[in-house]
C-alpha cells in the first residue's frame, strides 16, 4: 500500500451554480462572474469600447501589459468577431475559451478576460504579474563555499534556476494542481532515464490522491505524502538550495516544488542524507568525511549525553571514576532535585531560549541567547538549582544538536532527548538502552517512498557506503545510490587507476 493515510477522498465541492457554456449577453456574463466571485473588490469589469468587456483581478495582472498590449490596440476600434479581436491583441498567450469554469480558473491565475457582447465564448489573455521578491542568499542552509542563491516563492523562477543548472532535455517537469480551494501548482521535477519511473508514478499518485482544500507550503505536502507521518523522523528533505536539488536530481531523486513556497522537497530520502550537506561535495574529501563523522557523533552525543548523566548519578554511581566523583558530588550537593528533574528543567530552559531567540528579530535574538544563557546559567548554579557540570553537558549537547545540516533533524534530536532522559531517570542505563533499541527498531520500520530508511546500511549496499558517513574522493563516486532505484546506475564510467 502506497498511501497509508486515512484521508477520505472527497468529491469536488459543489458550486452553487454551474453552467454549461457561456451566456452570450454582456449582462449575463457580468452577473455570472459577480456570482462566482462572491465578494471581490479587486475584480475589475470595464467596457473599453462598445460590446467589448474586459475582466481581470487587479492584483494579479501586470498593468503595463494590459495597457500596452490589450487596451491600446482595441482602443476606439469596432470589433465584430472574436477572431478579429484575436488578431489585434499583441499579447503572446491568448486562448479562446468556451468553458466558464476554466475561464474562472484563468482569471485566478492572472489572465485578462475579454468578452464580446453576443458571443458565447471569451478570449483569455495571459497577463500575469509575478508577485515575488528578488533572489537572495540561503538563510537556513548557508554555506561558505557554493551557490549563494536560494529559491524564492515564485515557481517559475525556481524551475528556471534548476533548468539553468541542468540544461538537458531529460529534465522533466510535470505540473499538478493541489487543493480545491488554493489550486496550488505543484511541480514534480526529475530526470528522465535516471529517476525511477515507479517512484515518479508513486509520487504523482500520492499527490493526486490528496483531496485537501488548500496547500500553502511544501512541508505540509511532505507530511501528507510521506510513508509514515506519525513518525518523528522526517522522511523527505526540505531544501532551499537549488544546487542541492540539482545534484540530487542527478542522483535520481524527485523534487517537488510548490508555487509560493521557497522550499523544495526531495524524495526519497534515507536518514543518512540528513547528515550530509551540499558543502561536503565542495570541500576536500578528508574534511568532508571528518565533518560527517562529527555530525553523527554529535547527534549520538546530543541524544544520550544528558541521559547518561542522569542514569549515572541516579542509579549507577559505581561507574564514575574516582577523579570525577568529588567534583560531581560537590556540584550536585546543593541541588534540591533528583538529577532527572534537574536535567529536564535545564533542557526546557535551553529550549525556551532557543524558541524565544527564533521568534525575535535576529539582533535581539542573539543578545537574548547570550545574555539569557549566561545570566540564567550562572544564577541557576549560584542559587543551587543545578550543577555546573550539568550546564556544561547540556550546553554541549544543545550545541551538538545544531550541527545537523537539516533543521528538521535538529528538532528531532532535541525532542528525542526528553523521553530518553525520563527513561534514564526511571531505570538508569536499562532505560537508556530501551530508548535506544526502540529508536533503532523504529528507524528500521520506516521507509521513504518504499525505500528503506536506513539505506544504504540496511539493506547493505557496500558500494553506496562510499558516500554515506564518509565521503570518498569524487572520482570514486561514479555510482548513483541504490536507494533512489536509478534506471541508470552509473554517473560516469569508473576509472581504473587513480585519478
Amino acid at each position, binding site marked *: 500500500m502506497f498511501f497509508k493515510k486515512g484521508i477520505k477522498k472527497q468529491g469536488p465541492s459543489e458550486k452553487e451554480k454551474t453552467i454549461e457554456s457561456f451566456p452570450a449577453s454582456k449582462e449575463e456574463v457580468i452577473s455570472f462572474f459577480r456570482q462566482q466571485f462572491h465578494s471581490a473588490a479587486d475584480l475589475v469589469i470595464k467596457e473599453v469600447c462598445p460590446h467589448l468587456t474586459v475582466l481581470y483581478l487587479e492584483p494579479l495582472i501586470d498593468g503595463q501589459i494590459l495597457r500596452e498590449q490589450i487596451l491600446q490596440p482595441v482602443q476606439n476600434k469596432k470589433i465584430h468577431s472574436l477572431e478579429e479581436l484575436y488578431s489585434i491583441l499583441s499579447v503572446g498567450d491568448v486562448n479562446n475559451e468556451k468553458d466558464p469554469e476554466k475561464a474562472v480558473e484563468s482569471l485566478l491565475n492572472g489572465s485578462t478576460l475579454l468578452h464580446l457582447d453576443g458571443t458565447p465564448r471569451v478570449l483569455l489573455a495571459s497577463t500575469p504579474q509575478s508577485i515575488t521578491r528578488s533572489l537572495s542568499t540561503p538563510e537556513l542552509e548557508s554555506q561558505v563555499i557554493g551557490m549563494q542563491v536560494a529559491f524564492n516563492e515564485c515557481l517559475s523562477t525556481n524551475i528556471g534556476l534548476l533548468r539553468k543548472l541542468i540544461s538537458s532535455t531529460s529534465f522533466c517537469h510535470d505540473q499538478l494542481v493541489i487543493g480545491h480551494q488554493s489550486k496550488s501548482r505543484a511541480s514534480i521535477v526529475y530526470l528522465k532515464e535516471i529517476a525511477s519511473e515507479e517512484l515518479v508514478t508513486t509520487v504523482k499518485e500520492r499527490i493526486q490522491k490528496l483531496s485537501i482544500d488548500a496547500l500553502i507550503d511544501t512541508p505540509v505536502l511532505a507530511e501528507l505524502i510521506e510513508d509514515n507521518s506519525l513518525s518523528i523522523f522526517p522522511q523527505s528533505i526540505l531544501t532551499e538550495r537549488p544546487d542541492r536539488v540539482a545534484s540530487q536530481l542527478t542522483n535520481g531523486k524527485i523534487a517537488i516544488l510548490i508555487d509560493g513556497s521557497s522550499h523544495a522537497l526531495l524524495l526519497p530520502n534515507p536518514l543518512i542524507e540528513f547528515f550530509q550537506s551540499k558543502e561536503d561535495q565542495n570541500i576536500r574529501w578528508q574534511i568532508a568525511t571528518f565533518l560527517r563523522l562529527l555530525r553523527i557523533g554529535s547527534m549520538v552525543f546530543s541524544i544520550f549525553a544528558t541521559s547518561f548523566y542522569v542514569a549515572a548519578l541516579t*542509579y*549507577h554511581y*559505581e*561507574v*564514575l*571514576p574516582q577523579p*570525577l566523583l568529588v567534583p560531581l558530588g560537590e556540584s550536585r550537593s546543593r541541588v534540591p532535585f533528583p538529577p532527572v528533574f534537574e536535567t529536564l528543567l535545564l533542557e526546557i530552559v535551553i529550549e525556551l531560549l532557543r524558541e524565544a531567540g527564533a521568534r525575535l528579530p535576529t539582533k535581539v535574538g542573539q543578545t537574548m541567547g547570550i545574555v539569557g544563557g549566561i545570566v540564567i546559567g550562572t544564577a541557576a548554579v549560584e542559587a543551587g538549582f543545578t550543577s555546573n557540570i550539568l550546564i556544561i553537558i547540556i550546553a554541549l549537547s544543545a550545541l551538538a544538536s545544531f550541527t545537523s545540516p537539516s533543521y528538521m533533524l535538529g528538532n528531532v534530536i532535541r525532542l528525542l532527548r526528553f523521553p530518553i532522559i525520563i527513561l534514564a531517570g526511571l*531505570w*538508569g*542505563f*536499562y532505560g*537508556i*538502552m*530501551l530508548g*535506544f*533499541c*526502540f529508536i*533503532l*527498531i*523504529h528507524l*528500521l*520500520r520506516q521507509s521513504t517512498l*518504499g525505500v*528503506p530508511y*536506513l539505506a544504504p*546500511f*540496511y*539493506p*547493505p549496499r557496500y558500494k553506496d557506503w562510499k558516500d554515506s558517513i564518509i565521503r570518498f574522493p569524487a572520482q570514486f563516486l561514479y555510482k548513483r545510490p541504490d536507494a533512489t532505484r536509478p534506471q541508470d546506475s552509473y554517473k560516469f564510467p569508473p576509472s581504473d587507476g587513480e585519478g
Partner: protein
Amino acid sequence: MTAMKINLAERPQHSISALLLFFILHSVQVGVGLQGFQRIVFKSAGHDAWISVLISGIWSVIVLLIMVKTLSFYENTDLYGIHFDVFGKWIGGLFSALYMLYCLFAFFIIIRNYVEVIQAWLFPQLDAWFVALTLVVMAIYTVSGGIRVLVGLCFFSVLFSAWMILLLIFPIEYADWRSLLPVMEANITHLMRGAYDMTFTIIGFEVLYFINPYIKEKEKTLKFSALGLAYTLFVYLSVMIVSLVYFSGAQLENTIWATLTLFKIIHFPFVERFEYLAITFWMLIILPNLGMYLWCAVRGMSRVFHRNEKSYIYWFSLLIIIPVCFVKTRNDVNTLNGFFAKIAFGVVFCYPFLLFAVTWIKKTYKERKRRKSI
C-alpha cells in the same frame, strides 16, 4: 485444516540477500549463553574447555551442512513445508507444533536468563515481569514490522556489538597463559561432555530452517551461514580462552557470569565498571534472538494452522510473561537451563539428521517411481 503450500513464493521486496545470513545466524547464536557459558564447560572439560568449544563449533557447521542439504531438496520452503511434505498433514502438523513450542521455550529461556542478570547485577528490586514486559514489547514491535525489520535488527545488533570483542584486551593484562597447558589433558569423553554443555550457548542457527524461503541467492546460503557460524565460533573461542587465562580453575567454577566478570575490570578515564554498560547493552544482543524465535513460532501459526499472524504475535508474547514471574530463584533458572539444553540438543543437533534421512529416502523413492513411470 486445508492443505498448505510446500513451496513459498515470496514477494521480491521481502527477499533478503544471502549475505545477511551471516548476521542473522551470528546474532541469533550469540545471546544470554555467552554471559556465562565458561563455567559449565569448564566443569566438564577443565582447562581444555576451549577444545570443547571448538568441537561444538565444528559440530554446528556439520549440522548446518545437513540443514542446507535438506532444504536444497526443495525449491523454496521452510521447515513447516518439509514437515507437511514428509510426514503428512497430521504427523507433520504435530512436529511443526512441537517445533513452535520449542521456539517459544527458547524465547522464554532467553528472557528469564536476562531478567536474572538484570536482577543480580543492576536492580535487585526490579520486578521480573517488568523486565520481561519491556523486552516482549520490543520483540513485538520488531516482529510486527515483518521480516525486513527483524533481519535489520540482527544486522545492526551484530554491527553495533562487534566492538565488544575488543574489550577482551583488558583482561589479557592479568592473563596467565600457562593455564591453558597442558593441552588435551582432559580425555575425549570429557571434551565431548563439554561440547554437549555448549549446546545452550551455540544454538540459534536452526532459524535457517525458517528464514530459508526469504533468501534471494540460494546457492550462497551455505557460504554465508557457515561464515556466520565461524564468526560465532571465533567469538566464543576468544572469550573462552581469555576466561581460562584470566581466572584460575576453581575461581571460574564459582563465577556464574564469567564474561560479565571479565568486564568488571575494564575502566576508561570517563567510565569504570564496564559491566554495567555491557549488561544493558546486552539487550541489543538478545533482541534479535527474541524476535527471531517469536517470529518462527508465529510463522508456524500462519503456515501450519492458517491463522492470522499478527494477533498471535501478541498472544504468544503475553503467554511468555506469565511463567517468567513463577521462576524465582537462581536454582530454578539453572534447572530450567539444563532442561532446555537437553531439549535443544535433541532439536538442534540430532533432529536435522533424522529429517535429512527421511527427506532423502522420500526423494529417492519418488525419483525412482518417476523414472519407472517414464
